């Protein structure tokens, strides 16, 4: 009726259009499979089938080769396994060897979990990366997406795409063949510009910039590791580094004396700090506790003064200070077998590492230190030496609690009662070297002779 018709571009003759291939639509999986079979029989090689669901057996029809992906996974797993083992070995036995409890530098078993996890991780990476690479992703342009009907490939239609690169491809002939194979619609696949199938330039630029930026932190770290600096370290979380609280040995303007550590209030004592049993808590006899002992009024003993001789052993005998505390000579706790057994157990935990199980000063730490020959180690005095044997129990107690010479005090590790238990065991240990036959009970004696 109207004389005005929209101007349509004059379609050039079919043979003149550049055709990238043919896309044929099918209604059912069975149709697409039989069509694929037909084309294969005709000698077509370059076929692609698109389906909304997996079609069992189509890989056989298309003669699709097995995927390379499992091999990638296997390679990833093997690299992860060996790499994990190598990493554990190199870190522990080569790069940073560190003796922990005398264990070997490298051990296979505990390295297996990390190697196993790494095998899984790298296999997963190989599959993830391999699937992307084998799928040709990212692919910003797909020529089939230019055909609107192809959208149903994810819904309810099946498609075969015959590429024009196929040796057997002839537009008209192939079209007839597909029509005979019950195709319901055949479309020409457009040829797309090769530039279109490349990533858009902004994406590439952003990716390049990001990867350059990503190099900055490792470069900074590498620089910091290889140079020295006088600047304070960077503080990323300053409110954790600098907390608004008072610490020990700092000033506090709130108090007149300006100390943040508060001294005990005069005339008070903290719960559990009374410790008025001087013999039990300090190893010093009661009446001597206040006054005559060198030290403060609370009965704390000052360090014995001694001098180091050239061979590193302190000589204390010669320069015994005059105001030696009056050490307790009797145990302030009842000594029975259970106490001695407790003492043995504690001794073997805390003392034997240096003093040795037998008390000869040949503990494992001592042996190791002497082996290293670094000269800083003082071999502990044998606990069977006469000066030690003659020490009153109170002095031994003081040694355990406060240390002597290079031996540190163990007050924080060993409770008061356990210190006495250790001394009771020490006395028994010393007895093993000095006891005579007539001190041994008559019924035990024959057995002991047998042992010899």
């Amino acid at each position, binding site marked *: 009726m109207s004389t005005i018709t929209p101007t349509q571009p004059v379609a050039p003759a079919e043979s003149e259009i550049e055709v990238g291939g043919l896309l044929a639509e099918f209604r059912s999986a069975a149709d697409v499979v039989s069509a694929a079979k037909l084309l294969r029989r005709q000698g077509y090689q370059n076929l692609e089938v698109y389906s909304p669901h*997996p079609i*069992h*057996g189509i890989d056989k029809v298309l003669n699709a080769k*097995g995927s390379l992906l499992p091999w990638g996974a296997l390679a990833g797993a093997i690299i992860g396994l060996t790499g994990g083992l190598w990493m554990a070995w190199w870190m522990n036995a080569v790069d940073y060897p560190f003796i922990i409890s005398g264990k070997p530098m490298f051990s296979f*078993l*505990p390295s*297996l*979990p990390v190697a196993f996890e790494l095998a899984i991780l790298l296999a997963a990476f190989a599959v993830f990366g391999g699937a992307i690479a084998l799928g040709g992703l990212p692919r910003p342009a797909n020529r089939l997406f230019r055909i609107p009907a192809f959208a149903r490939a994810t819904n309810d239609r099946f498609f075969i795409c015959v590429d024009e690169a196929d040796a057997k491809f002839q537009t008209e002939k192939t079209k007839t063949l597909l029509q005979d194979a019950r195709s319901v619609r055949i479309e020409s696949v457009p040829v797309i510009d090769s530039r279109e199938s490349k990533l858009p330039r902004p994406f590439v630029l952003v990716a390049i910039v990001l990867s350059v930026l990503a190099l900055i932190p490792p470069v900074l770290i590498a620089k910091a590791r290889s140079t020295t600096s006088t600047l304070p370290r960077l503080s990323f979380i300053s409110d954790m580094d600098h907390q608004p609280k008072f610490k020990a040995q700092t000033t506090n303007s709130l108090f007149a004396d300006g100390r943040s550590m508060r001294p005990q209030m005069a005339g008070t004592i903290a719960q559990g700090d009374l410790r008025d049993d001087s013999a039990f808590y300090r190893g010093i006899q009661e009446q001597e506790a206040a006054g005559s002992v060198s030290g403060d009024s609370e009965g704390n003993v000052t360090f014995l003064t001694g001098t180091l001789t050239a061979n590193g052993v302190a000589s204390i005998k010669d320069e015994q200070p005059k105001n030696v505390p009056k050490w307790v000579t009797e145990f302030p706790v009842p000594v029975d077998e259970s106490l001695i057994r407790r003492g043995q157990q504690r001794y073997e935990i805390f003392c034997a590492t240096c003093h040795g199980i037998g008390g000869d000063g040949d503990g494992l730490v001592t042996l190791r230190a002497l082996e290293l020959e670094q000269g800083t180690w003082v071999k502990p005095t044998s606990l069977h030496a006469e000066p030690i044997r003659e020490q009153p129990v109170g002095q031994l107690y003081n040694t355990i609690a406060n240390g002597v010479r290079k031996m540190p005090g163990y007050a924080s590790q060993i409770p008061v009662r356990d210190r006495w238990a250790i001394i009771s065991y020490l006395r028994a240990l010393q007895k093993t070297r000095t006891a005579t036959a007539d001190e041994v009970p008559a019924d035990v004696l024959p057995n002991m002779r047998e042992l010899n």
Partner: protein
Amino acid sequence: MSAPTTNLTAKSDKAASHVKSSERTNLYLVLFTMVAATFVGMLAVGIGLNDGGRQLGFAWLLNVWFVLSICLGAMFFVGIQHITRSGWSVTLRRVAEVTGASIVGPVILLIPVLIALLSGHGNLFSWNDPSYVAGDEILEGKHAFLNAPFFSIRFLVYAMVWVSAGVWMLKTSQRQDRTGDKSLTLKMERRSAPILIFLALTTTFASFDWLMSLDPHWFSTIYGIYVFSGGMTAALAVLSIVAAVWVKSGRYQSLVTAEHLHDITKMMYGFNCFWAYIAFSQYLLIWYANIPEETIWLKHRQAHGWDAVTMVLMFGHFFVPFVVLMPRVAKRNTNVVIAVSSLLLIMHWLDLYWLVYPQFNESPILGSMEILGAMFAVSFTAVVAGWFAKGEKLIPAADPRLPEAVSHHVA
């Protein structure tokens, strides 16, 4: 849908009647003779040893548990198939159901051990020997749990769970064969959840009771899972052997194909890896903690000739099947599957031997008693399995998911 189903049913009916009754009678005759001969043989060897029946007891326990763990594994398999609504495994499920119900066999075989325990025998379970327990602080502490009456009560509970679950699952599935009632599938699915929970608990505690308490001082909380993983692998080995034989003989042609063989073997492969994982976990934790009361058990198994058994297990149970069955073609090749599955069955036996026998003798002993015991326990259970399968189909022909199994295809 109805047309292909009927067709399939007809096919499986034909297949089920494939075995001629005379063949079946002959098979039964052989099995019965085997049961009787091996039983008499074990008794004769046991009397000849004159050790108070000690070796007989250990061989008995080992071999009954070999079969028992396989039956438990088969029950787990059936439960898992129901609860996951699996279609692919329908054609193999009946074999697993029959194997699961056959747990009646090993349960019966454990009753003599129970009677010996209750009458005060302590040469199998040392915790039942008052003179051994006396003065031992640990065993006296464990006495409240490890004593013959409570042990027997616990076993009755386990046996009740196992037999009722196994027989119920088989009988319900067989009832569906006859009635075609599709609601039974849903019923089995619903009940499988509690059944699996009960199976998991009873398997763990039964392996604590019957195997771990052989060394009453020692304990490992992962032990139950270790026994389960071995039994599950062995049960799947049985299923894959059956599948491979059927594929090879073409007995169920379209019902059991290389696709089913592939998947059942895959599952076996996975559970074998699980076994290795659990075995390694148990070993690593004990090794790393290095506590003498725990390491003593493994130290024994690393010396006195047990080190060789451990190595055979490590390679035979894990590394060899792991490598051989890795390619796709291997899992679809009947001969390879039969060979590896048979190896895994032998290795599962050796695994239990490794668990049980170090408590019997300082170094490995393998003689007529152990072999006769294995033949006895297997043939006895086979008779029970035959009794359950007799006159019934070996494929759940009326299962609503059968078409899914038939069209199963491994991509």
